[in-house]
């Protein structure tokens, strides 16, 4: 009986999702995307005389530059000039959080792929050939590639950070069960299909315009100004869209734009610098690998009483965003669970890898993997199913996070219970057990993965945005914000907001490029909060304009502005349609000399965080959800497939259901990729071995789960989310963590001697070795 009830509930919910998808707004760029007419940096029309640039980078991970001979390269026909640090008029410094990263190496190199010089030539082909002719002599120094090694040698980016709640040391004394262990999660290549690139053009008076594939136009502008020794107003940065970002273009789009600008500065000619894939893979940082240790203590009834963890973050050769990423690891170290006694510490370890950087989840996934490992280990030791421990410790209303924020409007239990009920998880579990009983060559595994993810930049001052809205005199609308469109659909959401406030069709609205001369001093499009921040600013600007329009209409129609509303391009008085159309209203507003432009500034209220105490209220709200992942492992070959991923996700009140579902599905695939096939490999000398798409594999259409179901959690949403539609970019990535544990459970079903290991990714190699380990 229960099963039937549940199934009909599932059917109803699935139907609702399908209906919503049919009606929901499509990404506004869809039309030009599918026709190949959308423009990316490499597609912009270039000016006559444009030069092309290629970066010469370090062929060693650590050493002193004894000598570089550029003479042969310079002599090659078509080579215009080669730039090094000596050509920098301002500061040779591109570090964002900490000033510890030169644009070009001076006397030492710190990672394999570190930029040393920029070759500028008539064509990219010539520049590449010239690169082969450069001779460099490096006196090698010892190379550190792992965080552990760095810790042993005392090599750190900054001081360690620690969060604590209660007294974990004391609490362990009251624990029935205590488990300790080690985990490793590897890095991850962003693999935006559009590689890094920028195009710089000289304007008059020594001004420079840069078209960049960046998530952070202001970061580019600020850094170009610093390196060239110019005022920021001389630098204009324009972004149409990105062919994928995922955090990889938050900070690391900057150097290429700076290099192109530097060459333009000297040559007074346009310069294009687009990294080819191999250069991009070798020179840019990735998701941080983490080596961690944990200690978890539970009571008899499986309550986690105490948790301690030390996270060693492999930061690479410079700070980049590592300190902020390390911080978020601590924020999410207990995932969806309430643990009363917590001590967590993170160390940003300086190594000789390219500086690792932002990647969807921003340190959160690495933290969550550790507590999920701890739970799996504890469950194995106690002899219970991990989901019993997970379920016994889910966060509740008014629980305190280790950073002091009180949990409000918590949906952890709601999403967990909904997933259990809607998908009938008990019967799923039975099916898996039944299958495993009857099959030897194949085994199935199932795992639950709850998520809780905080929304806001954890650096409070970054939580702001502006929108500039013009209503043109024909009634069409142009909107500029700080948001960078990279496929996440933020421009579509902003358009929806304006269309909703003015009640005009979306064909009357244009979202402009993101440009530092229209919207200045912006935060990057990151932290899942781009739509919240820029959407709220847009909403404010549109509402201000609406108020003014209402006054004009009320004067014209001799009514109070309180009675005025706009609907489907007409003015309504007391709910009755008048003759006054949207376009006429705009003409009248113009004639009355009332401004048709508005600039609004939004700063997230309520949030604060005190780094001296490591306590505060850093997040506007949290996003919740639960995934159930089922896998089938081929025990002959060590390969695996995912049968299904069944999710209940907290969208709040989703304003763009198709776009938001796309974010969940895409993030899930990336999360599974990180946990399974995506394997970054460096050798001991610090050379990247997974240096091409032939050696670094991301999910293809055949490797994704056969079935992905995402049912929205029934909730009220949150006022600090734009139109109560919660941020959706990062949180679903962490559902993918369940993939690791599902596979591990299948391995356990085949090999009773298997000792649990927490070493991601779970490649087919690790699976096969584990299946036959003794």
């Amino acid at each position, binding site marked *: 009986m229960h099963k039937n009830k549940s199934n009909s509930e599932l059917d109803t919910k699935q139907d609702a999702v399908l209906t919503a998808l049919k009606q929901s707004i499509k990404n506004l760029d869809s039309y030009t995307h599918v026709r*190949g007419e959308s423009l990316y940096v490499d597609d912009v029309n270039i000016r006559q005389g444009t030069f092309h640039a290629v970066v010469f980078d370090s062929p060693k991970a650590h050493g002193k530059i004894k000598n570089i001979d550029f003479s042969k390269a310079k002599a090659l026909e078509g080579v215009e000039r080669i730039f090094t640090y000596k050509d920098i008029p301002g500061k040779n410094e591109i570090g964002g959080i900490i000033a510890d990263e030169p644009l070009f190496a001076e006397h030492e190199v710190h990672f394999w792929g570190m930029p040393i010089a920029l070759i500028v030539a008539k064509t990219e082909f010539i520049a590449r050939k010239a690169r082969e002719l450069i001779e460099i002599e490096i006196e090698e120094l010892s190379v550190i590639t792992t965080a552990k090694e760095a810790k042993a040698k005392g090599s750190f980016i900054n001081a360690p950070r620690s969060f604590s709640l209660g007294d974990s040391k004391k609490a362990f004394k009251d624990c029935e069960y205590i488990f300790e262990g080690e985990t490793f999660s590897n890095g991850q290549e962003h693999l935006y299909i559009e590689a890094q690139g920028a195009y710089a053009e000289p304007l008059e008076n020594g001004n420079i315009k840069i078209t960049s594939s960046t998530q952070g136009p202001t970061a580019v502008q600020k850094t170009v100004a610093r390196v060239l020794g110019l005022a920021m107003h001389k630098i204009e940065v324009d972004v149409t869209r990105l062919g994928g970002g995922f955090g990889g273009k938050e900070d690391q789009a900057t150097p290429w734009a700076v290099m192109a600008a530097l060459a333009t500065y000297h040559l007074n000619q346009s310069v294009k610098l687009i990294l080819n894939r191999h250069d991009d893979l070798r020179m840019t940082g990735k998701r941080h690998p983490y080596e961690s240790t944990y200690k978890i203590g539970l009571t008899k009834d499986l309550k986690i009483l105490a948790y301690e963890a030390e996270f060693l973050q492999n930061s690479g050769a410079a700070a980049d965003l590592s300190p902020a990423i390390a911080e978020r690891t601590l924020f999410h170290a207990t995932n969806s669970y309430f643990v009363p006694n917590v001590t967590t510490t993170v160390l940003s370890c300086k190594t000789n890898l390219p500086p690792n950087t932002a990647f969807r989840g921003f340190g959160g996934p690495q933290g969550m993997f550790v507590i999920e490992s701890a739970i799996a280990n504890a469950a194995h030791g106690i002899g219970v199913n991990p989901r019993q421990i997970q379920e016994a410790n889910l966060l509740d209303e008014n629980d305190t996070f280790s950073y002091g924020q009180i949990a409000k409007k918590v949906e952890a239990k709601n999403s967990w219970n909904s997933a259990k009920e809607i998908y009938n998880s008990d019967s799923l579990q039975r099916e898996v057990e039944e299958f495993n009983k009857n099959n030897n060559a194949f085994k199935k595994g199932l795992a639950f993965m709850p998520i809780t993810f905080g929304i806001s930049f954890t650096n409070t001052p970054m939580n702001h945005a502006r929108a500039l809205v013009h209503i043109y005199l024909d009634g069409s609308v142009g909107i500029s914000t700080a948001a960078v469109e990279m496929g996440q659909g933020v421009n579509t959401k902003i358009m929806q907001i304006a269309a909703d406030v003015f009640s005009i069709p979306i064909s009357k609205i244009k979202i402009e490029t993101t440009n530092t001369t229209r919207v200045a001093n912006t935060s990057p499009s990151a932290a899942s909060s781009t739509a919240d921040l820029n959407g709220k600013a847009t909403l404010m600007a549109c509402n201000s304009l609406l108020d003014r329009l209402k006054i004009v209409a009320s004067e014209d129609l001799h009514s109070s502005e309180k009675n005025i509303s706009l609907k489907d391009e007409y003015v309504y008085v007391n709910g009755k349609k008048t003759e006054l159309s949207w376009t006429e209203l705009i003409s009248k507003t113009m004639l009355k000399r009332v401004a048709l432009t508005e600039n609004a500034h939004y700063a997230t209220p309520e949030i604060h965080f005190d780094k001296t105490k490591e306590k505060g209220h850093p997040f506007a709200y949290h996003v919740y959800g639960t995934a159930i992942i089922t896998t089938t492992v081929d025990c002959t070959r060590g390969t695996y497939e995912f049968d299904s991923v069944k999710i209940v996700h907290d969208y709040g009140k989703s304003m763009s259901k198709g776009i938001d579902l796309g974010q969940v599905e895409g993030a899930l695939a990336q999360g599974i990729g990180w946990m399974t096939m995506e394997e970054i490999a460096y050798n001991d000398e610090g050379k990247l071995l997974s240096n091409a798409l032939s050696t670094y594999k991301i999910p293809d259409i055949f490797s994704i789960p056969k079935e992905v179901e995402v049912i929205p959690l029934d909730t009220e949403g949150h006022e600090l989310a734009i139109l109560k539609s919660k941020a959706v970019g990062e949180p679903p990535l962490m559902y993918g963590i369940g993939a690791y544990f599902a596979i591990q459970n299948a391995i356990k079903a085949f090999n009773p001697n298997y000792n649990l290991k927490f070493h991601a990714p779970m490649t087919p190699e690790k699976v096969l070795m584990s299946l036959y380990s003794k």
Partner: protein
Amino acid sequence: MITFILNNKTIKTSEHSGITLLDFIRYEQRLTGTKIGCREGDCGACTVLVGTLRNKIIEYQSITSCISPLGNAHGKHIVTVEGTNLKNKLNTAQEAMKANYATQCGFCTPGFVVSLTGFALSNSEKNYNNALDAISGNICRCTGYKSIEKAAHQVVEKLQNKKVTSFKRLIDNRFIPEYFESIPQQLEAIQTKELNQPKGKIVSGGTDLYVQQADNLIDNGVHLIADKDYLKGISIKNKTCTIGSNATVTDLWNHVELNQLLPNLRKHLKLVSSEQIRNMASFGGNLVNASPIGDMTIFFLALNSEITITNLEDKERRIALKNFYQGYKTYDLKDGELITNIIFNLPTNDTYFNFEKVCKRTHLDIASVNSGIYLSVENETILEAHVSIGGVAAIPKYLQETSAFLKGKLLTTQTIIDANQILQKEIAPISDVRGSSDYKRLLARQLFFAHFTELFPKQCNLNDFVQHA
């Protein structure tokens, strides 16, 4: 002059025939819908269609333009995403991508649209699995593919499960623009003479050479042979199959008779790269590439194939493929010599063939270990055996001793376990980015066992092997 039709425009160019089709399209023709993702055929963002006129009918195939020499476009119809666009409205594949939210950042999207259009134009059966194969070489980092699957379903639905689709029908159903109808005439009209070929590196499909040494090929001359008909074709005579070295993996895939004789052929070939690459990659190229892990090489080694080698004076010699390889990337081929074909005996009722491959990602990836086996069995006795294995030696390895051991033995679990002992002595895997040597050893054993559980499911099962090995 290289002459071809690009979308609806005749191109005559004296450009170097070795530059990539991608660079020509993007930077000389300013058709920027074709994107650069990886320049090694591994992402599909640069997918275009190649139409070849045969007996007044055009056959279209998708390829990755980043590793295709411009000269190979000579006499062909090349279709980019712009060439699939209708005026002021979306074509059916585009509409399906849009309606199902199958585009996010948009960078991979034109590649998917072109592949799906290629599927509509191809003579494959219009079912969902074939549609997926058509986009198997397209990588998307944003969507997680579920929306793209829905788009593929919608495309299949619109094609109504018909096999042959005329231009007229496709035009009426908004799959392609109207100008396609004039392409056969246009292609006849340009009447291309064979290209004057310079001396230089011999290139057929170019699918490996352009990954390894594109700049070098652009700088030096290339001698293109992909269009040389005498090197093409698959013929079956007297239980023997001869495959021209210029034949592509797709030619094998499409061969009706071979698919009957080797019922799992497509299952095996599906493990070999992607449809775009299978449309270009030649067998000869795979053999002389001499990769220790070359899929087709391992495949033909297990079939105990022979190859014909022809020199500049057209003198032929024939050797066993297993004797061709001498060391890492070295082989028995003298200056001026070319492999012209591969010959093998076709399986009969008493013979069995299997191919196994494991890599990080099942499709469009290079194997950690791959292996082929050919067995002739009568009354539970192995009369003949040929086992090959890749990724565990400097050369694509024919397992001489393992094969010899199996010959004459009873087909029992113990025989197979004993044979594995010999196999393990014959291989010498090294640790690299495709796996540790321990892993490759274990995987070699497992794939060897897998041959038998696949071919003789009644007699052999994993449990017995594992318990006794």
